[in-house]
């Protein structure tokens, strides 16, 4: 199976899944329509009607972790090809990646010491 056929098959599976979901929706709509009633579409919050707009500037508390995560995410791009050729190159590959990972671990330790790794 050539590369393009594999990707086409994956694209076909995505389309099939979306088609399945749409057909489920159509069957459900065929079974019965939704009856509009007054309070039915207000988000259900424990029996109380919450008029507050919820789309506000949500205060995320883990932005310290998120920033360090971006850097570690970059490192992932280098680790996969290295893993594939590791056995072939042996010790030099281990030392190369060792330096790379230690440099990054240094960044993690710095973040840790500066208090990035906690709930701000």
């Amino acid at each position, binding site marked *: 199976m050539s590369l393009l056929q594999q990707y086409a098959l994956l694209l076909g599976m995505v389309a099939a899944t979306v088609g399945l979901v749409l057909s489920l929706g159509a069957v459900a709509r065929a079974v019965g329509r939704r009856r509009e009633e007054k309070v039915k579409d207000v988000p259900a919050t424990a029996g109380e009607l919450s008029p507050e707009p919820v789309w506000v500037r949500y205060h995320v508390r883990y932005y310290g972790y998120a920033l360090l995560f971006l*850097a570690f995410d970059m490192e992932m791009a280098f680790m996969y090809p290295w893993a594939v050729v590791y056995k072939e190159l042996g010790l030099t590959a281990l030392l190369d990646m060792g330096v*790379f990972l230690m440099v990054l671990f240094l960044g993690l330790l710095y973040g840790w010491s500066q*208090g990035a790794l906690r709930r701000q």
Partner: protein
Amino acid sequence: MGQAVFTGFFGAAAIWFGVVVFRTSSMVRSALALLFSQAAIGAMFLAMETEFLGVLQLMMMATEMAIMAIFMVMYMMDPGGLGGMDMTHQKRASLVAGALGAVAALVVALLAGWGPVATRVPAATAQVHDLGIEIMERSMLIFETAGVTILTAMIAATAIAIRRRR
């Protein structure tokens, strides 16, 4: 022939999502539109049979654009886009800049000498293997400097974002 069609389709999808990024007033919707624009570029890589780059693009952009969404929601007014605020500023200047950019890209794409067209594409397993060898041998120095630049990025981000402990 099919390959060109899919590459063109995903390219158009990437551009369309890119436009949506600025046309929508909801921050999270524009962040996820950028996510799907990058995912469309990843799909373009796949259509051009560079499998590792395509899958890597699909993966990394999902997490990183979502993290961008955090900061867009925290720091932009009215992130839900209820007020329908106009996202575009200095319309004339940006139109000119956009047109210039497009022309420059086309010129580079058409006139630069890209060398002979690669008729035979190496197998995907070979691509990953050669990329690994490339990182470990010829451009090992670039690989290590990349590590150091990531380190500086981490230190800079922590220094800016995290309050010094009194």
